[in-house]
């Protein structure tokens, strides 16, 4: 049996005119399938409209307020992580671009020679810095007391530690956390 347009009339929200209502009634008398489906829908619709609006356990807004510091911290961590991921991504992309440029610009042999040359240059520079530092230390008058060395190296060491600590804090917790 053809259930259209009666099925639409049963489940649509539109108001039926008197002719449509009459033909739907006639169809429901003849079609047991549509009749049982309509009855089921009307019964469920009735139950749904009678079903209450469920409320949360008392103290919902207080719990929301109490959760704010935790949520802020979580958000800051999320943003810090996003920032670190962004930086790492940008660095990786730049590195890949550089490699791409090198590969397209030069032959693999040139690239290996260039890399080795850079490593050798870094080693030579390091050696030169070391020699300059040693010569400065040797040229200093012998009467410079040990205490002066300690007072110079200790703040520098502390500054380095603070710098490392600040970097860790920014990457792990984020900016703005109290």
């Amino acid at each position, binding site marked *: 049996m053809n259930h259209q347009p009666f099925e639409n009339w049963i489940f649509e929200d539109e108001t039926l005119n008197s002719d449509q209502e009459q033909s739907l009634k006639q169809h429901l008398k003849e079609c047991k399938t549509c009749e049982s489906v309509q009855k089921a829908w009307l019964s469920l619709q009735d139950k749904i*409209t009678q079903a209450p*609006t469920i409320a949360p356990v008392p103290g919902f807004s207080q719990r929301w307020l109490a959760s704010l510091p935790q949520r802020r911290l979580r958000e800051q961590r999320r943003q810090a992580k996003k920032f670190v991921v962004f930086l790492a991504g940008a660095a990786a992309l730049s590195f890949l671009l550089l490699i791409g440029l090198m590969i397209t610009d030069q032959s693999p042999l040139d690239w290996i020679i260039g890399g080795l040359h850079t490593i050798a240059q870094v080693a030579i520079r390091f050696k030169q810095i070391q020699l300059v530092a040693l010569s400065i230390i040797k040229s200093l008058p012998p009467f410079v007391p040990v205490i002066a060395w300690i007072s110079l190296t200790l703040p520098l060491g502390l500054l380095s530690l603070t710098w490392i600590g600040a970097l860790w804090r920014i990457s792990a917790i984020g900016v703005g956390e109290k």
Partner: protein
Amino acid sequence: MSNQEAEWLTDVRQGNETAFASLVEKYQRPVYNLCYRMLGDSMEAEDAAQESFWKAYQAIHRYDPNRSFATWLLSIAAHYCIDLQRKRKLPSFSMELVPEDSIPGSAPNPEKVAAQTEQEARIQKVLEQLKPQDRAAIILRYWHELSDEEIGNMLSLSVSAVKSRLFRARKKLAEIWLEEEKSINSERKHHESPAF
């Protein structure tokens, strides 16, 4: 929107979180109800409702005062619950009993309470069978009495898409309900048969 609500919103925009707590107090019930009907579990509904308010608080500068605040808030909660349902793929309704004190006017009569909780469980069970977006459309229509246009704005759907989703959802609900009724009736007949 009431004057009080507009005042709260102005205060929230200036960073007053206590003013937002007043809005939470006012809208906790509809938001929680939507989350509960979508997820079917009171713990999950509590978390989802709290998270929805947090999302709204964070996005308060994007709220258009010409729109209804309640609709905007429910839209955030509906999208959040739909995403949750999609992430977990399979719905996991716990079929837990609704706490007695969360039903308005619930009588202390144990029989009545038992009947109400059983009915709630049946309603949740049939809602579970719907796709998250269809379920959201049904909940917004029948529990929050929103129009097709409002539902469409909230779920980012056209009015005709809302109509067809509601049609499909109603048909499916009716078929499931009919099957349930049949199985309950056959169980009753089985228990009432002279052999027992």
